[in-house]
């Protein structure tokens, strides 16, 4: 998603000006995507250039210029709502890359990499859960107007998205650990089978790329 479409979605609800669009955007997305006001105005200028947004008139007494969505803007926004977000690009997630490299890099304790990440993610999950709990308490404890309630719901959904993402990461990290443990057991069994009765060393071909298995996969602390 781009800031462009986010601003168009807000303008579809009514005319607005830059500073208000910025604060509405942040409020509606729970502050997860902070914008600076320059970014908002640059985006508005591009939307005007593309005929998707237009000024409603001259600047008011405070120098603010209001904008509205054009018919073409409404059409483009409608297309966005009904078009699935493209997830087919190969993810360039730092953690994925880090672990992919760690399992083959010599001397890296992968278990430690996994553990420190899991600790961090579990803490994040806990903090998000606190925010979620506060949001639920607020929603139940106050007689908010319909608009406030809808904004509260939007905020809750943003939080839930972050909770699901963190939860999925913890599950993936658990999976990585169990795969590594199974791999280590299989290799031990292979090494055991290939060790001659007189105790001489196993076939070096079984020692992947000559790296030390214990260092590569680490041992539980």
């Amino acid at each position, binding site marked *: 998603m781009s800031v462009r479409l986010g601003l168009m979605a807000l303008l579809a609800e009514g005319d607005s000006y830059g500073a208000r669009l910025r604060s509405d955007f942040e409020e509606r997305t729970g502050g997860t995507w902070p914008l600076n006001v320059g970014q908002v105005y640059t985006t508005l200028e591009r939307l005007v250039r593309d005929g998707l947004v237009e000024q409603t008139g001259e600047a008011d007494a405070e120098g603010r210029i209001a904008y509205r969505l054009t018919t073409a803007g409404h059409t483009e926004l409608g297309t966005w709502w009904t078009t699935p977000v493209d997830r087919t690009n190969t993810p360039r997630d730092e953690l994925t890359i880090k672990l992919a490299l760690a399992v083959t890099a010599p001397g890296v304790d992968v278990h430690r990499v996994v553990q420190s990440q899991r600790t961090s993610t*579990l803490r994040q999950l*806990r903090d*998000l859960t606190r925010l979620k*709990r506060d949001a639920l308490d607020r929603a139940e404890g106050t007689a908010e107007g319909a608009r406030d309630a809808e904004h509260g719901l939007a905020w809750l959904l943003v939080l839930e998205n972050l909770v699901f993402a*963190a939860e999925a990461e913890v599950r993936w990290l658990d999976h990585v650990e169990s795969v590594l443990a199974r791999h280590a057991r299989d290799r031990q069994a292979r090494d055991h089978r290939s060790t001659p009765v007189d105790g001489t060393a196993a076939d070096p071909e079984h020692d992947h790329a000559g790296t030390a298995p214990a260092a590569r996969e680490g041992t539980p602390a």
Partner: protein
Amino acid sequence: MSTPHVVISDVTRVHGHDETRVVALDHVSLEIHPGELVAVMGPSGSGKSTLLNVAGGLDAPTSGTVSIGGETLGSLAPRDLAKLRRRRMGFVFQDYNLIPSLTAAENVALPLELDGMRARQARRAARHTLDLMDLMSLSDRYPDQMSGGQQQRVAIARALVGSRRFVLADEPTGALDSHTGEEVLRVLRERCDEGVAGLLVTHEARHAAWADRVVFLRDGRVVDTTGAADDAEDLLASGGSR
């Protein structure tokens, strides 16, 4: 910082002998303060349930000590240990374990009655606990007239009726859907916020996230503990990124 209500000190638990010897817990130490909920996570066979059983006096450590409210469990006679368990701690299980022929209020009153309290007084205490937990509307219902989530909330009330200040929960959300599970954890969290010490075993990260701390076990050892809370607002100000 308050005095810890639960102190598990250098506990090792070994099952079996020789070839069948299994170290279920290996020098585990853990403290739980009043008002604190600690979650225990870990893969199957990591020692989670053993830790819960040892903390609750259902199993004795091979070495090390467990104390609850200043009383060391290993130094108590079996009768006194049973009394301490009845009066000071409560258990919550995955399958609720409510008595089908008793109403919610009668189920909640049961531990007090078993401890010698007169029935009327016990029912009064049970209703008080149900009221505290906003469960009065369920007091006259039998288990088969309640949903799974409602039964589990009643089970938490039963675990905390009277003067009990330590709740041990073994996969309490295991039989519930995600939303209902979270509702149950919210109740547990609220009880801890009121000063109860809690120990929660779960394999769900999103449920462990309701705890103040998460202890991660593997092969009977603590390999990971989440520390103090981050500033949650800072977390989001950074774009919620990880």
